């Protein structure tokens, strides 16, 4: 009976996760490149020009995936944080810490591309619209998380404190998502939703989904790379890291 159970915690140890992550990273990079090229090809060459917005709308292929990722990564981060608090696994905190900069990057990209899109469409780089504001708050939350983690020297305490902050901040995600309904403002309504048919051309949707997949793969690859460095840094006193790095760390000790 026992052999049939998968040991989910096997890869919760940095020692066994490190080589696995190393093997997975090239695949995710390759997938990111494939999806990215395909998505951009559709986005720039296949998708038709928008009737109202002209060519300017094509920034949607970066803007929307970046916004999705920024929100989704926060959720994943909070998920890791909750796992870390519940099971007290070392890896969870490392993953949360590794995801935060990528999430912050996407939140920033989303705001930046939004500004570039807003200027020709609304005539303003920035409007105090609910969704823009929520995205900005999300960026603040990422910055707070990163600042808290880097201010605490003890990594275990940093992980747990960050985890609580992430879980508290996750309350913000639904506010972002439902803000379109809460406030009726300049921002156009959501163009993709799960309940009703999308109000955009099929090719545009495909391009956007491919770009979103590319962003996913990129995020996973980068987060894993960052997690690997964090692992080495935190576990530098252990046997396996010493064995992995050969004589290098022995000289430093």
């Amino acid at each position, binding site marked *: 009976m026992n052999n049939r159970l998968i040991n989910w915690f096997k890869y919760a140890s940095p020692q066994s996760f490190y080589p696995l992550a190393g093997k997975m990273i090239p695949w995710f990079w390759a997938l990111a490149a494939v999806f990215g090229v395909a998505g951009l090809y559709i986005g720039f060459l296949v998708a038709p020009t928008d009737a109202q917005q002209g060519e300017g709308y094509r920034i949607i292929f970066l803007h929307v995936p970046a916004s999705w990722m920024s929100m989704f990564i926060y959720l994943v981060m909070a998920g890791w944080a909750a796992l870390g608090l519940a099971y007290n696994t070392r890896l969870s905190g490392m993953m949360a810490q590794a995801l935060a900069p990528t999430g912050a990057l996407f939140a920033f990209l989303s705001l930046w591309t939004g500004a570039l899109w807003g200027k020709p469409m609304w005539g303003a780089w920035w409007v105090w619209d609910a969704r823009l504001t929520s995205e900005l708050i999300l960026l603040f939350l990422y910055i707070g998380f990163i600042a808290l983690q880097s201010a605490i020297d003890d990594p275990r305490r940093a992980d747990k*404190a960050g985890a*609580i902050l992430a879980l*508290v901040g996750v309350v*913000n995600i639904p506010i972002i998502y439902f803000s379109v309904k809460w406030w009726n403002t300049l921002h156009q309504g959501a163009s993709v939703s799960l309940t009703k048919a999308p109000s955009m051309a099929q090719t545009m949707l495909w391009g956007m989904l491919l770009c979103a997949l590319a962003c996913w793969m990129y995020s996973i690859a980068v987060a894993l790379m960052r997690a690997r460095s964090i692992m080495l840094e935190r576990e530098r006193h252990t046997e396996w890291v010493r064995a992995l790095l050969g004589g290098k760390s022995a000289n430093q000790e």
Partner: protein
Amino acid sequence: MFALIRAVVGRDLRLAMRRQADIVSALFFFIIVVSLFPLGIGPEPDLLRKLAPGVLWVAALLATMLSLPRLFADDHRDGTLEQLALAPQPLGLVVLGKVLAHWLVSGLPLALLAPVLGIQFDLDADALWVLTGALLIGTPALSGIGAIGAALTLGVRGGGVLLSLLVLPLYIPVLIFGAGAVDATVTGMGAQAHLSLLGALALGGLFFAPWATAAALRIALE
């Protein structure tokens, strides 16, 4: 349960009363910040009336921030906090008591002082009432959410700045609905909806924040 909360509130109030300078300086910070705005913007009554809700609320947020680091720091330094954490009573209730005491010495005076400052901004009587009411309802949420940040940054270097970085984004909903209530009164739309949402935030904050704060305190005490 109520005996415990009452004991914690009583103790914290007594401690606060022995160091009244702290309370008064936070209040004067509030007064000075609010008074700076007309000097920076200009004395036109129309403009000031429009800005008043936001200015008063932002100043209230900042003044609350100012007194937050002291919420746990003194008890942490002399070991009282560890004793409280070891006590058989749930730490969350102790935190709730401390949050209530913090509100009594920071939020309540702010709310009572705000109408006087509102007069500087030429707000009419209705708006002043709503401003006071909104601050009375909203500031408990500020104390509650702030307690989480205070516990997370306990004993961390650069704690004060970090605390504002963590807590101010979480204050935004309170700011929106609090200032919105006054704004709605000024424009004649009625503040009921905003005040209800503000009340919901305050109740939610007071219910959940002590729980998260207690968890954060246990991490800080490890």
